[in-house]
């Protein structure tokens, strides 16, 4: 029996269940964190009345959303309309399977883990687009069109940065990447300026692209509330909206985890006091906090401003870092 449990499929299954629970819990409580954080930034308490410090608020929201009427408006493409939220949620869940949360805590340690995340990530775009298209709503369609151009534009600098990282580390295995950053915190990739003096900039580019790809403020063109009502989600009610909502946070989770793995040394601890998993979570949640912080500070960018930023600034700079790091690698 024990042997059976240690077999690969069972392990995988166990991890998938674990990840689902992790994502579910996190997606729900990231919403709480967001609301609490927004509250603090605005000098108000945020949710407090539902449970201690509003801790039951996400549960109340979930119950409410689950029990609401799911409207499939007339004229929508019902099949696609229903599939789209799931299509948004599934890739985020699957991608987390390759994230190493601890030295041996990854559902599947595959050699092309980094590629897997981006391959699955590309489905997200499809999901929002189908959601927007099938809604048959002008705002939703405009939003879908924006999402596509935004994500296409930001995929390029992201991939360039990731290629830089692959070149520097020489692997696409996430666990291996983390392993290479062992030692004190200056061995983390962000601080490895001797490998590439532009490493902090590279991290910044990755962070910006991550914000853009997860449609977070200041790049939240997809649900630009004051322009497009609720964007691609305008026609979604009840859990359809809920799943989109959760998927958004799951994607943030994924993005922050990836940034942690690539740049912040993953589960490597700077002092060696706490276990690796905790360090991983601390770093990840710090990035999540930064995402919240950014959201509640800045106004939304204009759409062409967003594309300009990508095409005129991020892509050249990331291309430059790529060339620079390859030159440095060649020289030394």
């Amino acid at each position, binding site marked *: 029996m024990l042997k059976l449990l240690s077999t690969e*499929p069972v392990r995988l299954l166990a991890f998938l269940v674990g990840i689902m629970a992790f994502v579910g819990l996190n997606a729900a409580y990231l919403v709480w964190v967001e609301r609490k954080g927004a509250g603090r930034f605005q000098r108000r308490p945020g949710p407090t009345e539902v449970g201690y410090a509003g801790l039951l608020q996400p549960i109340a929201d979930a119950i409410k959303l689950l029990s609401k009427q799911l409207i499939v408006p007339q004229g929508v493409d019902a099949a696609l309309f229903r599939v789209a939220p799931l299509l948004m949620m599934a890739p985020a869940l699957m991608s987390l399977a390759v994230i190493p949360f601890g030295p041996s805590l990854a559902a599947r340690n595959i050699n092309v883990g980094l590629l897997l995340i981006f391959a699955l*990530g590309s489905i997200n775009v*499809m999901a929002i687009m189908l959601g927007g298209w099938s809604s048959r709503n002008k705002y939703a*369609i405009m939003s879908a*069109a924006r999402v596509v151009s935004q994500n296409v534009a930001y995929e390029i600098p992201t991939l360039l940065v990731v290629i830089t990282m692959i070149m520097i580390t020489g692997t*696409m295995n996430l666990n291996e990447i983390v392993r290479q950053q062992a030692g004190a915190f200056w061995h983390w990739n962000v601080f490895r300026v001797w490998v590439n003096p532009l490493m902090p900039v590279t991290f910044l580019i990755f962070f910006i692209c991550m914000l853009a790809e997860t449609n977070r403020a200041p790049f939240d063109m997809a649900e630009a509330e004051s322009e497009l009502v609720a964007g691609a989600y305008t026609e979604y009610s009840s859990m359809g909206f809920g799943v989109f909502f959760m998927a958004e946070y799951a994607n943030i989770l994924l993005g922050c985890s990836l940034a942690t793995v690539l740049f912040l040394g993953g589960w490597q601890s700077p002092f060696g006091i706490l276990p690796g998993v905790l360090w991983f979570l601390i770093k990840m949640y710090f990035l999540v906090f930064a995402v919240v912080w950014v959201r509640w500070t800045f106004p939304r960018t204009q759409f062409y401003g967003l594309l300009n930023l990508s095409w005129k600034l991020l892509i050249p700079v990331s291309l430059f870092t790529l060339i620079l790091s390859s030159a440095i690698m060649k020289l030394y």
Partner: protein
Amino acid sequence: MNAFPASNLIVSVAFVFALATMVLGALIAVGSRLLIRSVCGLAICSVGLAGLYYFLHSPFLALMELLIYVGAVCVTVVFAIMLAEPTEPKNEEKRGPTLFWGGTALAAAVAIFWSLWWLGKSTGWKTPASRLTDGSVKAIGVSLLTTYSMAFELISVALLVAILGALAIARTGRTKP
């Protein structure tokens, strides 16, 4: 993997599932009246195909298939559909030509399929005695930059030209900045 009971069966089922996904996707892609569903069919087909690649011992290409077909090709096509026509014409054409073309297409498809099947079955394929490389990402990269560097360059030029051409074609007619 073999320690797990009936693992062979499970893997076989997964394989059949991937195969079925691919075929189903392809059928949706050509059969659906709504173009948007056709694209979804193409995406499903690509997912199935990626599964087959995985069974062909190349997870790298499986993921590339997803990245390029789902992430780039399908997205672009959906985008184009949004800009252009939402549906395939329903009953605009006369029945005669429709039937004729349908029949021709079916006949051609069946003929091709049958002949290829026969060809595939009847040929005795030989497995090689030894392998030069293991076909990993590294091997692919090395080959790309050595043996096939010319083709690689050509592909990049083709892509560049495609980007420029697409920009040039799509931009004409836009009067605004």
